[in-house]
């Protein structure tokens, strides 16, 4: 069997007594588009933040291409409060990364509440994200001796902006763009870090119906073009059912269902969690 791109084992995240993610197990295989859905406050973004090392999980492990990128076990106060099972499952070597390290390994993300660089144009936003893959050092850059590399990056930026369809607004300030375009820009910026796994946090939020429709085709297209694996958090059920190969559903931090879109649509537990059948 092929190794999954991302594997989440017994992931638990507690904030004091609040259990935001509770014993979550997931895996995403190469080339899949997987959706993580659940009602508001179910712990989806928290799970994202654990994967990208914004938070240190209380317990559990995140494994990327066979390498543990986050592994932890409850200690101190957390141990006393710990609500999950398998308290000692990960008590071996503890791994803590910083978010930039995770991105360097090849996991890029977008944000639920758009976080573009405010003082920069759309073009600069994407260009900045390529900084990670530079070879030149600060001195050659200061003296602008890295012309070739810089030129290649600018070209690549232009290409990315063209792919997401923002070429005409590339010199506008990022924050002055309409909401839908800001979302696309965030995706372009994430792609600029050359990821293998793309995490999209509610990419359709704030988009109009037409844009949402275009988004599913767009996600599929970039998946092929950049040979990505995609994990997406989303509320728009049409979009989720359209693009996902598999879906995970969580509620109150706990996994309640897992399966193909068809299976999920039939699942009584899911229908109940979504207020008696919001899924249409």
């Amino acid at each position, binding site marked *: 069997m092929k190794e999954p791109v991302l594997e989440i084992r017994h992931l638990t995240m507690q*904030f004091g007594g609040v259990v935001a993610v509770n014993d979550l197990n997931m895996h995403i295989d190469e080339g899949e588009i997987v959706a993580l859905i659940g009602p508001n406050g179910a712990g989806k973004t928290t799970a994202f*933040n654990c994967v990208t090392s914004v*938070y240190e999980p209380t317990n559990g492990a995140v494994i990327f291409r066979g390498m543990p990128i986050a592994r932890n076990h409850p200690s101190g106060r957390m141990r006393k409060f710990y609500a999950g099972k398998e308290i000692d499952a990960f008590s071996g070597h503890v791994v803590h990364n910083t978010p930039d390290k995770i991105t360097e390994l090849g996991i890029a993300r977008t944000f639920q509440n758009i976080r573009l660089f405010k003082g920069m144009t759309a073009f600069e936003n994407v260009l900045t994200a390529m900084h990670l893959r530079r070879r030149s050092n600060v001195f050659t850059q200061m003296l602008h001796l890295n012309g070739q590399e810089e030129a290649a990056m600018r070209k690549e930026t232009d290409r990315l902006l063209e792919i997401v369809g923002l070429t005409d607004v590339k010199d506008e300030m990022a924050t002055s763009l309409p909401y839908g375009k800001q979302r696309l820009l965030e995706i372009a910026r994430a792609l600029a870090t050359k990821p293998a796994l793309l995490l999209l946090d509610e990419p359709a939020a704030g988009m109009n119906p037409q844009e949402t429709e275009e988004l599913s085709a767009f996600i599929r297209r970039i998946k092929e073009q950049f040979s990505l694996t995609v994990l997406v958090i989303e509320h728009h059920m049409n979009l989720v059912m359209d693009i996902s190969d598999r879906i995970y559903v969580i509620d109150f931090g706990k996994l309640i269902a897992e399966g193909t879109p068809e299976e999920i649509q039939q699942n009584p537990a899911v229908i109940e969690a979504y207020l008696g059948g919001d899924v249409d």
Partner: protein
Amino acid sequence: MWNTVFPYLLSGISVGGQYALIAIGYTMVYGILRLINFAHGDVFMVAGIIMIYISASGMPLYVCIPLVILFTALIGFLIERVAYKPLRSAPRMSVMISAIGVSYTLQNLVLYITGGLNKQYPTIPWISDSVTIGPATTKIVTVVTPFLTIFLVVALVLLINKTKIGMAMRAVSKDFETSQLMGININSVISTTFVIGSFLAGVGSILYFTNYNTVIQTSGAMPGLKAFVAAVFGGIGSIPGAVIGAFIIGIVENIIKGMDVILFKSGVIARPLGLATFSDAFTFALLIIILVVKPTGLFGEKATDKV
């Protein structure tokens, strides 16, 4: 040994008490506005200047002292209204810059008024008298300070825990936005905080300058910074923390000041090392160590950011 250490210890406790009175102002303002009020040390200095000018007008001391404290509280109130209130929704850096601007303004105003000269602080009868305790001879103010400080702190803690305005203060320092929604008048709470902070700085200035005799426009900078360090040390936002931090800093600073003499007299060293230079530097080294090792200080609470 004890005989040489004791005088330094005594003045350390006294200075610590004076720092404590200033530190409370820092810690309360930070607790509520998350602002380092860089001007607070200068308010303390201005209180000293006001005392000099009021007493020069020939008024009796029992009129002067209340007037000084009243004016100092008023200045604190005005600074908040003029320089901080308009920036309530501005980025934190702007407010800090405004605080630095106020500090600069106060120092320059005093420079203008005094002509940049050291001004003699009036002698306050009784507390300026000398007293001998064991091996140390000192002014009565040295002995009075810690007691007065403790008394004021207890009164303040009672005010915060038992009165309505105190409850409002605690609410605002916990959650600014929510307490606003709950109908607490934020502005009056903030003003009260500044008034209390400045009031205590006013009292502190009388004790401090009675000990040091002269006031100049930069007199407030150092005690102000040290009091701030004390507030951080104790865990910013915590009043008991600030007081304990201030006493520790006051004592250690004075011990370092006397370290040469102490070591010399006890025969450890043959020649002075000039360690007294480091009495100020020590405070800041302590600050950096504390911030790195335990940024929340002795009694501070941890805050988390949301992504």
